[in-house]
């Protein structure tokens, strides 16, 4: 068996690749469901119902999709330029911490500024925190050839430890009875509810707007051309006059800022505090979402909602049939591998030797 490059890739194959990958993943995951002793059909039906079967299910799925779309966008921007940012998790926490630093109830009240001023400051601080966190690895890659996968991944652990130190130190919530959580966000900085009686907040508007913004940058701006050119062929881009270093810096700032905003929007829209478990790996799941979307910013919205639905649906399914919720993680992780193989197969054909 060997792989031969296809001369052209059909557009249909590009659409079918993620669909086929997800279908393949569900078949593989079915084996685990059987192993857990549950009926496959009922399990998947419950999973689907739990994620998309009611207004409540949809509201929970959309709530979960908000940080996933944002981290998915962070991965999309970076991966498009071949800057492999694995650090969205750390950037998310840094953004969340920055949001509390600006908008938290320090000393019981926080900064006495108008929310009209404080809210933009809070968002800006979160974006800057995430952006600066990725700037170092990007420059080290560009100038010194240091592998950004290693540096961004390791920084995640540093950030988590730093968050832990803050939650036990300067930002500790004095009313939490020793529980490691930060002071709360000022109430008037919290995002409004999009649908009453649910947890869906206006962060969804932020996420979708940012997806459209990234799409427009990719498609209509010189920066978007630069990002795509550097990712596709850095030497060719440099020859054509693309400022490669400046483009990498812009990509790092944009990608890190998106992940940082994910943290701030989680705090302002859902948790109100920073805790050490506020993100169950949103940063890493964002990579899966970006790949499922084929690095298309608008596709990230759909992929984010789908993955969120699987994660949410797994919770209620687990309660009903006793298959551990980890099946959702297996599905998400396996779908990443499947989509990578499927993408490969859209570009290459397998020949028997």
């Amino acid at each position, binding site marked *: 068996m*060997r792989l*031969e490059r*296809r*001369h*052209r890739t059909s557009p249909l194959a590009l659409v079918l690749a993620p669909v086929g990958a997800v279908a393949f993943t569900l078949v593989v995951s079915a084996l685990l469901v059987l192993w857990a002793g549950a009926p496959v059909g009922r399990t998947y039906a419950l999973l689907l119902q739990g994620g998309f079967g009611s207004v409540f299910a949809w509201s929970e799925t959309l709530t979960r999709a908000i940080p996933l779309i944002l981290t998915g966008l962070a991965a999309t921007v970076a991966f498009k330029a071949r800057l492999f940012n694995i650090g969205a998790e750390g950037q998310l926490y840094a953004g969340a911490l920055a949001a509390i630093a600006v908008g938290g109830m320090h000393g019981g009240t926080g900064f006495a500024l108008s929310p009209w001023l404080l809210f933009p400051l809070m968002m800006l601080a979160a974006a800057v925190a995430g952006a600066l966190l990725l700037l170092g690895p990007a420059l080290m890659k560009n100038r010194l050839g240091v592998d950004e996968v290693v540096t961004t991944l390791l920084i995640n652990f540093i950030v988590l430890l730093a968050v832990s130190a803050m939650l036990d130190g300067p930002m500790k919530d004095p009313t939490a009875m020793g529980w490691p959580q930060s002071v709360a966000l000022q109430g008037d900085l919290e995002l409004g509810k999009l649908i009453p009686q649910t947890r869906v907040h206006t962060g969804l508007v932020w996420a979708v707007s940012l997806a459209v913004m990234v799409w427009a*940058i990719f498609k*209509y*701006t*010189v*920066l*978007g*051309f630069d990002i*795509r*050119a550097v990712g*596709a*062929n850095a*030497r*060719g*881009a*440099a*020859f*054509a*006059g*693309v*400022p490669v270093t400046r483009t990498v810096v812009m990509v790092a700032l944009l990608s890190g800022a998106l992940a940082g905003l994910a943290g701030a929007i989680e705090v302002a829209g859902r948790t109100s505090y920073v805790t050490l478990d506020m993100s169950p790996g949103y940063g890493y799941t964002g990579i899966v979402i970006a790949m499922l979307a084929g690095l298309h910013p608008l596709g990230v919205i759909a992929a984010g909602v789908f993955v969120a639905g699987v994660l949410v649906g797994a919770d209620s399914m687990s309660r009903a049939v006793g298959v551990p919720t980890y099946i959702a993680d297996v599905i998400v992780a396996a779908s990443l591998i499947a989509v990578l193989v499927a993408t490969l197969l859209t570009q290459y054909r397998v*020949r*028997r*030797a």
Partner: protein
Amino acid sequence: MGREPPSPPSPKGGRCKTFMTQTVLRLQGITKRFGALVANDAISLELQAGEVLALLGENGAGKSTLMSILFGHYTADEGRIEAFGQALPPGNPKAALAAGIGMVHQHFTLADNLSVLDNVMMGTEPLWQPFSRRSAARARLLEVSQRFGLPVQSEAKIGELSVGERQRVEILKALYRGARILILDEPTAVLTPQESEALFDTLAQMVAQGLSIIFISHKLGEVLRVSQRVAVLRGGKLVAQARAADTTQAELALWMVGHAVEKTARRPARSVGDAVCVLDHVRTTGSGHDRLDGVTLTLRAGEIVAIAGVSGNGQVALAELLSGTRRAVAGSVQLMGRALPPSPARLVPRGVARIPEDRHAVGVIGDLPVWENAVSERLRSPAFSRWTPLGLRWVRRAAARAYAARVEKAYDVRGAGLSSPARSLSGGNMQKLILGRALMAPESANGQRKPPRLIVAHQPTWGLDIGAVAYVQQQLIAARDAGAAVLVISDDLDEVLALGDRVAVMHGGHLGEPRPATAWTREAIGLAMAGTEPS
């Protein structure tokens, strides 16, 4: 293939003269498709013991595919291969090696930091053998090198050898493994004329010893010089076979291209104008010989200066310097009286048209559409983008696509349209796109086009078919006649002599004095390429 195959020869007996007519290799009806493209269409070929068979064809004619099938890198869709009377299992390079087929690739597969002996032995010893049997291997290498007249120093590091010597090591590597059929892929592409002659002598010696050689080339002269028989491929088909003694260059060219070809006729520069670009004792960054080491050169309007040289002697540095992708560390570079800006984005608006050596890796961004590649050099100009209040430049897509369409039309770029990826263009069409965008400035507000002032063309016709070669060369000559200063850097001596009004030779990062093309002989250029200054 109705004939009875001749009695199976023993591979050991190839040394005596009686085997001269024995078939050592037989390809029968080899067909290979890539999607809709038929790379090889029912090709049947035979190779006799003790002969050099030249395989002639343009790029894309199917030579490489056929040899890849023979060597087991690809599997044929149809057909079979026999070596020394035994069927060769498809898709198995090890079996090809064991059957005595050796391949010398155009791009060497040697480790620079290891010795000649290490490179020759590499892969011939089993992994679990505790000690390497170097002295036995050295004795065998010596024996092979003496028998075929290929002297080498077995302990020299590859990195210290010249290109000709490295090629000798590649050939020895194949012979050391017992190759009785040697495939040489464009072996003279990297050699000076003198080194090529030495190679031809070596090949003569090898066939006299009973070896058989397949010599792949697209240079007609050397094919007739070196081979006994010529097979011509065109469009995946074997279109002709002839004895070298019975054919002519003109006939071979006709078979190769399918129609009569006129060579670009030399047209001397009409009027040479002022200096456009002046290099004064320029040194650049770079390692080894891939840098400029004190180069002085004046390029004048209306004149083509052609640079010859064995690749890797500083040509890349010179081309990159004038393309804005490499810096000078000493000396000065002036463009129309002002310092040359060190970035492509500022060079292009000053009238510098650039044609890079590697059109796939540097000239285009293959995954992006044709129209974006057409405007990529000028995307930052007001013609194709404008500032928005957000601080981002917004692309004027309509203007960009219109310009791309004009380039496509004016330079006859044929492909699947402006929105298809540039990667899908054939080599010739890709080069026309690069040529077109470089030479054709967009119209300014008053409807005028600024013609390029300086053209830097590095290997502008490398790998193109003869028709595209003529087109590119004619465009460069036309640009010269329109008043541009043209610098052509090429490994192809024929091209240098056909295009250059003045010719200079690069060696070891130095550039010789440019002299009128008519003042040079091929021998003199060859000597200069090898580092001997002409007196």
